[in-house]
């Protein structure tokens, strides 16, 4: 049996999506900018995809900009906003648990003379709004905050933060990295006062190499790449039509029958956490209470064992999870998020992330639980005495 439980790293593409992508690549492969019939067809498909995606957020299709994925969306949101607003100020606020696509971008801007405040988080991984309020200055131009944390599944108070930011200064641009939230949480940029929102396709059963940035009409932002002027000049480069078609179909499918699917995911999550607590000793579930966090991410520290060893053992049984965050697990440095929530030092390298999707089954969770329970005690017996 196989159990793919690393869905926060990437997901299996829906069959329907793969078919739609294949059809676009082999039949409707025109360049969306070409004026002939095939180009027109592609252009129409892109427009329809844009509308489908806009519907999932209840926004205007003109506010959806296609990119290559989460990292590009984050880079454009932060660098593009910083450059367009620098005459107003050079202060940026973000959190200490962001994805490297944010952290490395603000670090880059710091070299160009911008200043960043990194907000702390509590033990549950959630930002305190008082800290946000205190950090806002007259020269603050941008607040960037993730919706769902990729390592522990904490959900940030986006709606309250949006209200707070706009009540202090409506000109501050509010960017939300929703890569782990889109498809798992209902997002309403308008009522949440979100100006920019980053989304990636391959986290929602869509293709890799495609994503989008929601840009609220009127937001002050400039393009950061130059070329043929596609997408109104905001993002030059031939539109990735197969990717766009796949992304929009995946987005639509994720939000269909949404409440029932989310409830099922929470049930699985609760079952997983309860069983872990019941069947294993000396473990710690990280992040907020199960029903306060995202429905698909469970972070668990297994005292006395190195995450990498557990991961290798599970991998040999065709169970796939990750250590900390998959994007950084090749790095010797341990997770910023786990440090930020104040996790005990001895547990930092003992933490694995189990991340589910709408395709995850109870059988897979049982297989994981049985394997962990039979192996952890054996491994502990041999580990670092």
């Amino acid at each position: 049996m196989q159990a793919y439980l690393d869905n926060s790293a990437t997901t299996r593409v829906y069959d329907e999506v793969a078919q739609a992508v294949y059809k676009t690549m082999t039949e409707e492969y025109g360049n969306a900018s070409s004026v002939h019939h095939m180009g027109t067809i592609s252009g129409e498909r892109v427009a329809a995809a844009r509308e489908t995606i806009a519907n999932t957020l209840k926004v205007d299709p003109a506010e959806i900009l296609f990119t290559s994925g989460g990292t590009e969306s984050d880079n454009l949101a932060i660098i593009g906003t910083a450059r367009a607003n620098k005459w107003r100020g050079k202060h940026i606020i973000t959190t200490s648990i962001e994805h490297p696509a944010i952290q490395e971008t603000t670090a880059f801007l710091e070299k160009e003379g911008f200043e960043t405040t990194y907000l702390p988080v509590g033990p549950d991984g959630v930002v305190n709004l008082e800290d946000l309020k205190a950090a806002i200055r007259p020269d603050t131009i941008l607040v960037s905050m993730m919706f769902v944390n990729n390592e522990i599944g904490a959900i940030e108070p986006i709606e309250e933060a949006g209200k707070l930011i706009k009540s202090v200064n409506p000109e501050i641009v509010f960017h939300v990295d929703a890569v782990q939230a889109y498809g798992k949480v209902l997002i309403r940029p308008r009522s949440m006062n979100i100006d920019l929102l980053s989304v990636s396709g391959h986290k929602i059963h869509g293709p890799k190499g495609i994503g989008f940035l929601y840009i609220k009409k009127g937001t002050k932002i400039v393009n950061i790449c130059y070329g043929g002027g596609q997408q109104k000049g905001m993002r030059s480069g031939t539109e990735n039509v197969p990717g766009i078609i796949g992304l929009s179909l995946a987005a639509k499918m994720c939000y269909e029958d949404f409440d029932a699917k989310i409830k099922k995911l929470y049930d699985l999550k609760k079952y997983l956490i309860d069983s872990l607590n019941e069947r294993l000793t000396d473990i710690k579930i990280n992040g907020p209470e199960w029903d306060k966090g995202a429905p698909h991410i469970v972070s668990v520290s297994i005292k006395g064992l190195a995450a990498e060893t557990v991961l290798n053992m599970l991998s040999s049984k065709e169970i796939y999870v990750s250590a900390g965050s998959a994007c950084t697990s090749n790095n010797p440095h341990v997770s910023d998020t786990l440090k930020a929530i104040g996790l005990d030092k001895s547990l930092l390298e003992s933490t694995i992330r189990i991340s589910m999707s709408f395709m995850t089954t109870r059988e897979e969770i049982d297989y994981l639980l049985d394997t962990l329970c039979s192996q952890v005690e054996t491994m502990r017996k041999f580990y670092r005495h």
Partner: protein
Amino acid sequence: MQYHAFIIKYAEIGVKGKNRYIFEEALVRQIERVLSKCDGSFSVSRVAGRIYIEAEGFDFNEVVDHLGTVFGVTGICPAVTINRDSENHLPDIDGVTKAVLDFIDGVYPDKHKTFKVKVRRVDKSYPMDSMEMGAELGARILGAYPEMKVDVHNPEILLNVEVREKLNIFSEIIPGPGGMPIGTAGKAMLLLSGGIDSPVAGYMVAKRGVDIEAVYFNAPPYTSEKAKQKVVDLAGVIARYTGKVKLHVINFTDIQMYIYEKCPHDELTIIMRRYMMKIADIIAGQTGCMGLITGESIGQVASQTMQSLMCTGEVVTDMPVYRPLIAFDKQDIVDISFKIDAYETSILPYEDCCTIFVAKHPVTKPRLDIIKKHEENLAEKIDELMKVALETDEVITIEK
């Protein structure tokens, strides 16, 4: 500068008496091996105690990089050559002067340098002798490039002009790795881990002309495929110099677990290493190796104190254990690791059998009699486990 040839310098081989041709032929074979991977056409010949590579249509840096991996080469001299004309004449002194001036201009755009001309006339039928030619060329160079100055004792440019079958002009000597050509010594078995030291140890012994075979102890399922790939890549670093490395991957998990179960935990690493040496010794014997190689260095870690080395070395009885790094400081080892492009791979942070399931405070002064006594606890199953481990031997051949 468009060079036409490379003159290869070698040192120790020259003094090996009647066996000299064996070493020279091995060196030519290794040179031909690395050149076969470069663009261009090459002809390698042994003429009058030197190796001469004629080259056409090649990339200079690619060729120099590859020649830099051939043990036995002490220097690489890129040369300009001029062929005889249709009447079998070499150019006269005017022709030689022109070639020499072009050479200087091509290689040294900044002429503010001291120089000396060294002429070697092998073809005694050439009308001028070497002293005359040297003086004449020196004078003409000074006339053409007044910024240049003669310094016969310590010149910045030592301009070599050779009158042979062809006319050769060269000045630079790019240092080679030195050592002895691969294939002239024999074969040894390297205990290769994923660390910094063992690839360097393998490189250093290979440099003495030794073919390398390697053994890696794997601990599935607790170590990853990436950890194994890392070791394959490190074997590849050595194979760049030796042409080929056969890597034996042994599943060591059960032995390790069994030792853990039966022996004191602070002695685990020592006992584990004794069994690694035993297995390496057996495979070495079966594959015609004449020694084991380890990356050990006195005092670097608990298992490499002098007491520990006594305990781990004791199990190998029928061949020597070569420890080329035994008196090296860590930084010196790291420097070589950098030089041979192993470092970036060595520091990839994957768990391997030496990092999982190890004691926090291993014994630093083990006593052989006590270790041996505790090993008696293993008597029941260890022979069977050794046999099974040897059966898991997966041989991966890495050719470069």
